[in-house]
């Protein structure tokens, strides 16, 4: 029993160490971004903390246009991805068994292709058809990457939906379309909202694709950070990173809350 207590302590310690290891890159941006120094260093005391870089980021116009462009792209991507994701997953849910494997493959394929390859391919396609460095081109490129995640999130909600709900609705006299509107969508609305937020985050974070399919017209925040780092390493990047981490965590918390409001989930 004594050894067991020790072994347990060692295991718990190891667990926290792993947690710290996984969280390190997320957390390190906070001290750097809140440092009073002009250089990228850790603050050496609590008094060296300041919001100087945060204020800088929030007032400088090039950061703000980055935020604006990112917002436009991310919101459009979220809407488009959600429409595609919902249509796709309700279709798959209906067809069931026979085509599921093939359809899942279509869904997963773009998720596993190395981003650099998608980026190269889209660069070629978009220049060929004149979508290079256009709003529509960037939004479509982001949607191609984000839509599968929306679809998977909606599918996960649908998988929890009793297929007999659809049968019940039809037995009561509702057509297939009416059933989608009256019964299916209201019961997966949490999953749909979560999928939209997921697509938003994907687009908001996206860098590699954007580097390839956009240039000057569309200038997103990650790109601005990328260029900012390459031009001169300043703590503003850490500051905006810290802001973004906070934003992302808030969005995730909302997602989690939305998902838990699905009536289907609650009744389980």
């Amino acid at each position, binding site marked *: 029993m004594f050894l067991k207590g020790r072994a347990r302590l060692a295991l718990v310690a190891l667990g926290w160490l792993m947690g710290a290891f996984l969280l390190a890159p997320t957390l390190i941006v906070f001290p750097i971004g809140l440092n009073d120094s002009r250089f990228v260093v850790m603050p050496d005391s609590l008094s060296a903390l300041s919001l100087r870089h945060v204020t800088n980021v929030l007032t400088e116009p090039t950061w703000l246009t980055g935020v604006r462009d990112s917002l436009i792209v991310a919101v459009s991507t979220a809407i488009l991805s959600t429409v595609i994701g919902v249509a796709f997953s309700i279709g798959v849910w209906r067809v069931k068994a026979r085509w599921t494997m093939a359809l899942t493959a279509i869904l997963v394929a773009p998720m596993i292709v190395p981003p650099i390859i998608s980026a190269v391919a889209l660069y070629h396609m978009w220049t060929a058809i004149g979508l290079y460095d256009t709003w529509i081109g960037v939004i479509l490129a982001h949607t191609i990457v984000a839509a599968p995640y929306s679809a998977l999130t909606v599918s996960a909600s649908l998988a929890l939906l*009793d297929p007999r*709900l659809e*049968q*019940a609705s*039809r*037995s*009561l006299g509702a057509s297939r379309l009416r059933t989608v509107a009256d019964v299916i969508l209201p*019961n997966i609305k949490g999953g749909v909202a979560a999928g939209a937020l997921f697509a938003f985050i994907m687009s908001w974070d996206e860098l590699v694709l954007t580097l390839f399919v956009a240039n000057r017209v569309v200038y997103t925040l990650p790109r601005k950070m990328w260029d900012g780092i390459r031009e001169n390493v300043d703590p503003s990047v850490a500051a905006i990173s810290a802001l973004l981490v906070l934003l992302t965590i808030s969005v995730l918390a909302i997602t989690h809350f939305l998902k838990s409001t699905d009536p289907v989930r*609650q*009744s389980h």
Partner: protein
Amino acid sequence: MTVSRRTGHAVAIQSLCKSFGAVRALDDVSLEIPAGEFISLLGPSGSGKSTLLMAVAGFVDCQEGRILVNGQDITRVPAERRSLGVVFQGYALFPHMTVAENVAYPLKLRGVSKSDIARRVDTVLDLVKLRGMGDRKPRQLSGGQQQRVALARAFVFEPGIVLLDEPLSALDKQLRSELQFELKGLHGRLGTTFINVTHDQEEAMAMSDRVAVLKDGTLMQVATPREIYELPNSRFVAEFVGHAAFLDGTVAATSEDRFVLESGQYQFPIPDTGRLRAGDEASLVLRPERLQLVDRSSPEVRPSIPGTIIGSAFLGPQCVHVVQTDFGALKVSMPSSGRSNGLDSQKDVAVVWEPDAAIVLPRYA
């Protein structure tokens, strides 16, 4: 309770066949269900009973055969145009709607006016004893109440036929037997045709006018509960609708109109041979509650088999004794009302029965 007594619709199922891959879920099933009947489709899992119900509901497309309602072919009519009330396994209530909204939904789809909807929903909620529950969500209700909402939703648009897919299987034992009587009463009041699917023989017998027993996609027997239990047409039906012991032997004639079953050293009288003739292989079916135990030494004119009690169990209303005999272990069920039956384990006894309490079956039926 102003629910009008309606006349149910008649259903005719004609040579229905359905395969899932290599599995034959329905194998040439034909069944006539007169208007207003309460019929139960009874069988073990995989017998095709649910497939048959879902074919009538319109959710299973059959490769061959037709389904008629009041003489009209509905085989190709989509589910939403069949106007059948369906009570699904697990109820399939819409979790995002209140009880009243659930029940109102079929009326809303039919363009009934708001005031009419409110009135009819109230009436039907009264009928299923859920007055005042209209504003709750399904998940706030108990299992028995949810089941009643599902019934209300299936009845409210006054369909001529109501299909029930294991409507009571999710409920616990006590509640189940209570709702069996309620469901039967509801059927009596409404006059609608009820088609009920169950794997529980007691439930099927308790509620139905007729029981259709299925096995491997084939209809084995369609008859009243009493016929199914007392005159099963096959070993499968005899075993499935209650406990049964089988004595196998050969039919022999002792005189012009008296037949016995010969099995080893035993000869048992046969009440009614039906189509059997001397020389045929046959089995006697014995129900535990039609057997009695007597002292082995006492004289006995009834058919009897000697044996030894190897186990006894008190089950409340009855005691069951297991007797080891030359025909294997036989179960004998006796009322438990006497304080002690003086029947201990290891006791030598004889199992006896009234000649007409045995059922005779061709051996390989």
